[in-house]
């Protein structure tokens, strides 16, 4: 037996084969350098920070999607949930500030209101998908519509202005050791989520359920609970991202998340998350978000027309996944 095993292992791994796992990061670097030849400011400290900050929002949403994509689903309602959270948080923040509460109370109320909206969306999706057994597409398409309706109704369709400056001071302009709040928070979430996925029963269960839900059930995993929790976690992460975005805009925007659902899925998938479930993680989400952000930042620097950018982005989504396939096959 043992001699066969030896024979079965490929004798030598060529340099090219060693490189495959790094295909996407290398492509990323090439992209960055390529654009830098067009405009050197692309690699300036200011723009690198700019890229990092832009990435942190998209990465948060891509991470949220990843949680449910791991279970073989996805969340179309993520974008509208972001809008709904933004508006709700802004309304509560302005109302609380108007009522003369102290800054801490105002902040807490606003954050709570936003997160509560996220929880509500997550519970809805979770219940409909896990308990009623509706496919994620239909369930989250339903909540997509519901969230749009709620966001425009409670805001009256207009931006909610007068959000206390404190909110932005803390969550947007605030820095920790010179690093902007959004990057710090997204980074912290990434580390935490990574630990959850790799080190907790819940994380492990996500992968197992996504790979073979039936087997997970037979082996005694609480599949419904895991699914419901996945959608809850997704919406809560989306809500967190929405709060950061609201701090970035300084107002509650009823259309803030308009096209984020598909963008976040695309970012996750480009990074190597598999829509067939059970494959991907925090790393793939961040990689994908970084890729998409650098690409559009670079194209902006290179002064490429908006519509051409759409075409390039579309091609890149497919290319990213093809690269990932090749990488898997090479392994």
């Amino acid at each position, binding site marked *: 037996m043992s001699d066969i095993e030896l024979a079965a292992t490929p004798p030598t791994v060529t340099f090219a084969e060693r490189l495959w796992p790094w295909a996407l990061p290398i492509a990323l670097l090439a992209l960055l350098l390529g654009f830098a030849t067009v405009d050197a400011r692309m690699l300036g400290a200011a723009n690198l920070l700019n890229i990092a900050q832009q990435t942190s929002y998209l990465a948060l949403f891509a991470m949220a999607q990843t949680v449910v994509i791991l279970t073989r689903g996805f969340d179309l309602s993520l974008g509208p949930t972001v809008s709904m959270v933004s508006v709700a948080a802004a309304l509560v923040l302005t109302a609380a500030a108007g009522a003369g509460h102290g800054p801490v109370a105002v902040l807490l109320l606003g954050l709570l209101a936003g997160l509560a909206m996220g929880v509500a969306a997550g519970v809805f999706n979770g219940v409909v998908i896990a308990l009623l*057994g509706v496919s994620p*597409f239909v*369930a989250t398409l*339903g909540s997509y519509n519901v969230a749009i309706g709620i966001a425009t109704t409670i805001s009256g369709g207009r931006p909610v202005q007068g959000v206390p400056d404190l909110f932005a001071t803390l969550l947007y302009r605030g820095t920790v050791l010179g690093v902007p709040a959004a990057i710090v928070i997204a980074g912290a979430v990434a580390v935490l989520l990574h630990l959850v996925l790799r080190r907790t029963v819940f994380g492990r269960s996500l992968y197992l359920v996504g790979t073979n839900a039936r087997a997970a059930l037979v082996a005694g995993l609480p599949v419904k609970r895991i699914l419901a929790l996945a959608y809850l976690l997704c919406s809560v992460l989306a809500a967190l991202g929405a709060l950061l975005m609201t701090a970035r805009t300084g107002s509650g925007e009823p259309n803030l998340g308009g096209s984020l659902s598909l963008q976040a899925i695309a970012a996750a998938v480009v990074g190597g998350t598999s829509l067939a479930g059970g494959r991907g993680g925090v790393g793939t989400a961040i990689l994908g978000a970084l890729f998409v952000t650098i690409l559009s930042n670079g194209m902006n620097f290179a002064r490429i027309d*908006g*519509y051409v950018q759409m075409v390039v*982005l579309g091609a*890149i989504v*497919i290319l990213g996944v093809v690269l990932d396939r090749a990488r898997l096959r090479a392994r």
Partner: protein
Amino acid sequence: MNAPALALRGMPSRAARFDWTLALLPILLVLLVAGMSLVSPQFYGPMNVLNILRNTSFLTIVALGQAMVIIAGGFDLSVGAVVALASVVCAKTMGWAGAVFPGNDAAVVLCGVGAGLGSGLVVGLVNGLCVSRLKVSGFVVTLGTMSATAGVGLMITSGIPVYGMPDGFVKGFGRGQVLGLPIAVYLALALLLVMIFVQRRTLFGRYVYAIGGHAEAAVVSGVSIERHVVGTYVLSGVLAALAGILYTALVGSGQASFGGDRMMLQSIAAAVIGGVSLRGGVGRVESVALAALFLTALGNALNLLQVDARLQPVFLGLVMVAAVAAEELARRRVHRV
């Protein structure tokens, strides 16, 4: 000999397994129509019925292709973008052909329609080849081509509506009626009948089911997967393009704003509510058409009931989820008893 008894357990007869999920949609539709007729007499007014039918036709045409793609185990997010692309390509081509063949409306229309359908065919071909050759999931491929197609549509027009189509195309075809019904309705009906036939009686239909049901089994049985997968995407692209052309004829201008995410989501919703499984291998086009009718009538009802526009999506979303949840629960019940 206990063979008959064995057969009883091993092979449920068709009649014994009456599929309640098939009956649910018509029931919902009847409830909707009955309820609306009580509340709002305009609902069954001839003009309104005409509206519903016309809008159903557009959605049905797109959803038919979408359904075939999903039954084969794929996903087509690009249909909305194709509707837009076909519209502007068709209009632009007619503008150009109008200069080449002045006065010859038939040639102009033929060029325009051909180019429009051709653009759908090209996008479908790209989708299908990417899915089958690169072995990338349909969701991802069409997510990419959706963005690219929309980009091309906008590049062509810069977003400005394209005019200059022959009058006959707009007045005769787009807004024309035969026996009181818009031409689009006949077209959708004819396509539906053709697709029913394709699904039940042709090799293509059979293979689409087989590939979506279990692709590996189809391969070892000697079915060439690639050709048929490409076929479904091309079909979906061409049908979406046809819808784009119909919109162009109706509105009288080529617009890059037709279709969009909305049409894409609606077409998938119609397929899924119509009983097409996103896992592939299951679904009938006639139910999909019924679901398209249901969705359109529901939207129309919300407008007629004068529900606040901002709240309409809330109702739409809840009804959609409730309908599919009810289907799912009915299915479970059937399985138990």
